[in-house]
């Protein structure tokens, strides 16, 4: 530990001592989080009441500003302070002696350490993944409720407002609490290891980024318990429906997005600084594994684009709570302005949800084909091309929105052009597979499943990019089919591939291969049966986001609903495999896949500071089949010896 464990100065305060109860209540942790949550909520409540009383506004206890300030802003800040996310910074800022960095908050010895503010990127990665899978299950349950209602025309189980809430919360959870942060979790675990670094550049910021997520997710889910029901204007939250014509649940969406967005921005900054400054000696940009390239480009997108959705949600919420007129035409506002700002984030967000998956694909496909990635540099450059083009296509979501009609053709051209770098990636993966030695383990199955599904999603994307076709199919079930082929067949398949691929590294145990393959086939078949028929419903004219539909669409909807329950069952196989393998699985070797990237050159799970000595990078990470090729030289150590053990 010569490079990472440093001597500590004497200006640190001694660790707090004292009685058990006192320590339990005052020391950082969930209990202090609970009472500070209540305390801060009360303070927020008091401030609002005081201002309203002082100004003589009636009614004194206005629900919306009270809920916003007290429950959605102040109380979560109290929770974060309570669990200790700000402790170090607070001591430092107030001039108190900071506590010794004894690394007690780093790494996990028992399961309890996963419920604390932890600065170890590997612990945070697992925290991210477990949390996001929880919200994946919640969002999936909501989707099944939606399908239950849609099995027959007419309304069966839910009234219209509840139904609109179901699909709105489903989409918001899947996007903001599952796909985006699940990628952040995988990258959190893997990127520092791949770079040859001991941790992320800003470990405390990393911990804070994670703890913002449960707040955002619980906020969105709890909107179901509000009077008037959950937010019900779709995950896009268009003005003026969301900003003026919704019950109080709408601001739970507006504010939930802020917490999730802040988490995203902080993580992205952390990745950028880590990737730029903490590469091991010899790790040039052209030697970076493509997963690192993918997260580098994704982070650029997040940092540039996410402030726009934050702005759009603030404006919408101000219209709702404070009766401003950002989007209210009666006060001079412009409803389409919301859509322009929203999609200026949310189109790049599609790539935020896609590029990290591309990175995972490049790792998995190269390793399980035992061949170098075909056209490495073009693969990296096409990622950059997608970043640049990604900012010039947002209005293709608005071809029928009533925006200036001249904007349609230029936006169509940029949209269609983005198919070119995406095509390069698909063809390069195919060329990587060609003449390889394919090992069809579970991660590779999900990778191949991704390739075939993403081609369909990409092609329906080209159809949507052509304005005349978009005019016919936008706002219909064709859109629902397209987005699920891209985000489920695309992103979610890559997340599954990544989870199976790095499961041995994260847990130190192997997953069950047979259950993994069963999970893949159930998912692949269930997915296609559920979502392919939606293309047909859409072109035939069935609008999306409806609880009721014309009787002529009844048969296909019943079929889709039945298939979706099959898809739901596949998730049970996944959960069972993960839980039992984590607990009882076979002990994993350091490098079960014979991969070259750095994370596989250390033990499974890796030591607390990753590398006994910072490795020296000497070559490309994908030199499979090149005799004697090496990616990096590691100091001879226990980890190195373990690697020699035949698998």
């Amino acid at each position, binding site marked *: 530990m010569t490079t990472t464990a440093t001597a500590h100065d004497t200006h640190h305060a001694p660790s707090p001592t004292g009685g058990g109860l006192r320590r339990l209540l005052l020391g950082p942790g969930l209990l202090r989080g609970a009472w500070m949550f209540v305390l801060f909520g009360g303070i927020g409540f008091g401030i609002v009441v005081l201002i309203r009383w002082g100004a003589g506004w009636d009614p004194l206890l206005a629900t919306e500003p009270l809920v916003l300030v007290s429950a959605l802003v102040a109380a979560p800040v109290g929770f974060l302070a309570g669990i200790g996310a700000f402790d170090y910074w607070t001591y430092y800022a107030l001039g108190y002696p900071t506590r010794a960095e004894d690394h007690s908050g780093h790494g996990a010895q028992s399961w309890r350490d996963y419920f604390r503010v932890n600065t170890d990127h590997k612990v945070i990665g697992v925290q991210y993944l477990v949390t996001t899978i929880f919200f994946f299950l919640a969002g999936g349950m909501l989707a099944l409720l939606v399908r239950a209602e849609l099995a027959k025309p007419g309304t069966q189980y839910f009234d219209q407002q509840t139904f609109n809430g179901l699909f709105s919360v489903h989409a918001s959870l899947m996007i903001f609490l599952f796909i985006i942060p699940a990628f952040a979790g995988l990258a959190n675990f893997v990127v520092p290891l791949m770079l040859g670094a001991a941790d992320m550049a800003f470990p405390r910021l990393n911990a804070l980024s994670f703890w913002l997520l449960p707040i955002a997710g619980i906020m969105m889910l709890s909107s179901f318990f509000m009077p008037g029901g959950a937010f019900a204007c779709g995950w896009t939250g268009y003005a003026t429906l969301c900003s003026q*014509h919704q019950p109080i649940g709408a601001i739970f969406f507006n504010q939930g997005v802020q917490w999730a967005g802040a988490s995203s921005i902080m993580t992205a900054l952390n990745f950028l600084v880590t990737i730029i400054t903490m590469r091991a000696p010899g790790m040039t940009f052209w030697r970076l594994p493509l997963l690192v390239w993918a997260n580098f480009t994704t982070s650029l997108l997040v940092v540039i684009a996410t402030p726009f959705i934050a702005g759009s949600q603030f404006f919408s919420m101000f219209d709702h709570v404070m009766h401003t007129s950002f989007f209210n035409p009666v006060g001079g506002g412009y409803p*389409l302005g919301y859509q322009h700002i929203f999609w200026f984030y949310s189109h790049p967000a599609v790539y935020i949800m896609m590029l990290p998956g591309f990175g995972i694909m490049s790792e998995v496909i190269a390793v399980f084909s035992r061949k170098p990635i075909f056209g490495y*540099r073009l693969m990296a450059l096409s990622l950059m091309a997608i970043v640049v083009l990604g900012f010039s296509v947002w209005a293709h979501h608005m071809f029928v*929105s009533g925006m200036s009609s001249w904007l349609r053709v230029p936006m169509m051209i940029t949209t269609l052009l983005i198919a070119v770098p995406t095509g390069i990636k698909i063809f390069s993966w195919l060329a990587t597979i060609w003449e390889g030695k394919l090992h069809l383990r579970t991660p590779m199955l999900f990778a191949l499943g991704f390739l075939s599904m993403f081609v369909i999603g990409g092609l329906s994307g080209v159809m949507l990019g052509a304005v005349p076709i978009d005019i016919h199919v936008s706002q219909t079930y064709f859109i629902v089919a397209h987005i699920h082929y891209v985000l489920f067949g695309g992103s979610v398949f890559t997340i599954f591939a990544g989870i199976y691929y790095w499961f041995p590294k994260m847990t130190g145990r192997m997953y069950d291969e047979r259950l993994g393959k069963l999970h893949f086939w159930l998912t692949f078949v269930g997915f296609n049966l559920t979502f392919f028929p939606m293309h047909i419903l859409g*072109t035939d004219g069935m609008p999306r986001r409806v609880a009721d539909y014309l009787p002529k669409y009844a048969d296909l909807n019943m079929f889709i609903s039945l298939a979706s329950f099959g898809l739901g069952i596949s998730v049970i196989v996944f959960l069972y495999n993960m839980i039992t393998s984590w607990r009882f699985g076979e002990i994993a070797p350091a490098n079960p896949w014979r991969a070259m990237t750095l994370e596989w050159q250390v033990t499974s799970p890796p030591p607390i500071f990753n590398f006994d000595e910072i490795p020296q990078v000497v070559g490309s990470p994908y030199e499979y089949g090149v005799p004697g090729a090496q990616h990096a030289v590691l100091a001879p150590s226990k980890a190195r010896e373990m690697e020699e053990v035949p698998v």
Partner: protein
Amino acid sequence: MRRGSVVALLGLALIAGGVATAVAIWPTWLPVAASREAGRIHFVIWFVVVICIAIFALVAAVMVYSVLRFRVQDDDFEDGPSVHGHTGLEITWTAIPFVLVTAIAIVSAIVLSRNDAQAENTLRVDVVAQQFEFTFSYPDAKNVTSPVLRLPEGRSVELYMRALDVIHSVFVPQFSQKEDIVPGLVTQLHITPDRVGTFPLECTELCGLGHSLMRSQAIVMKPAAFDAWLRQQEKSAAPAPATTTTSTTSTSTTSTSTTPSSSSAAGLSVFNSNGCSSCHTLSAANATGTVGPDLDKLVSYAKKAKQPLTPFVHDSIVDPNKYIEPGFPKGVMPETFGQSLTKTQLDALVAFLVQSAQKSGNK
């Protein structure tokens, strides 16, 4: 690449392409085209679908072939050939997609400009959308209004659309044309119907509680039948606001001296033309909506609100959030009726509702 693998690849590509083509041809996934615009858009769809099938077949063939041919067992520790790239191939698969998408863009742009071009003698129809109803009116024919969109076959039609509350959208699948209706803007949509028939017209932009029920119809008629319908509507629309062209004094006299039966007819027509029935149940109007409170029970609602019936009904229309019947969400009913209805219309509507509520209350 060996000759055998080329043949096998081609075979697989043909199978994949054949399956995809069967999927594209066998189910009827496109509605019948009922406008010239739809005909052109269907052409673009098929143009792109053919390209998509070709690319899908290629990718599927390479993938299936690789899985069948290059698969090895877990105990095979050999590596594949160390091929790092091939400049020629990489240029090819950058250039070909570029050419294809350029072709798609050109075809699309041409179709788009032709679809938006208005012919001479274009019929103007004004559309007003609100939660959860459309109203169509014909400015060339003394603003005849209709809850369904009636159009003459073969004539270029331009819709001028306004929304009163939130964003709505007009979509008739058979016309293939769609545009949002945005509060504060007037958006336009061009249609040239070329097939007689009745087609569903739907709101496709989530507009709140009753969104999935916000439906109407588009009826395309022979031009002669359309003109006859328009003339007949002009006549029958006349009595209610008087003979329009003559004098305004006659308007006020007719409305003040209405007999009970004619006021209830006027109230019923206001009820029907403002979309009340999409949310409310009212037996006198054969309305069965369930989004908002049941208007047959107005008597008991008024009792709960501790208000006399007539002012209660009036206030509930003009200021719907003043009293909310338990079990129904606040802020759903549009607050715009106080402005959009004339005083005469409002009074007729209130009188009609009070009358029918008392009738059903006495049952």
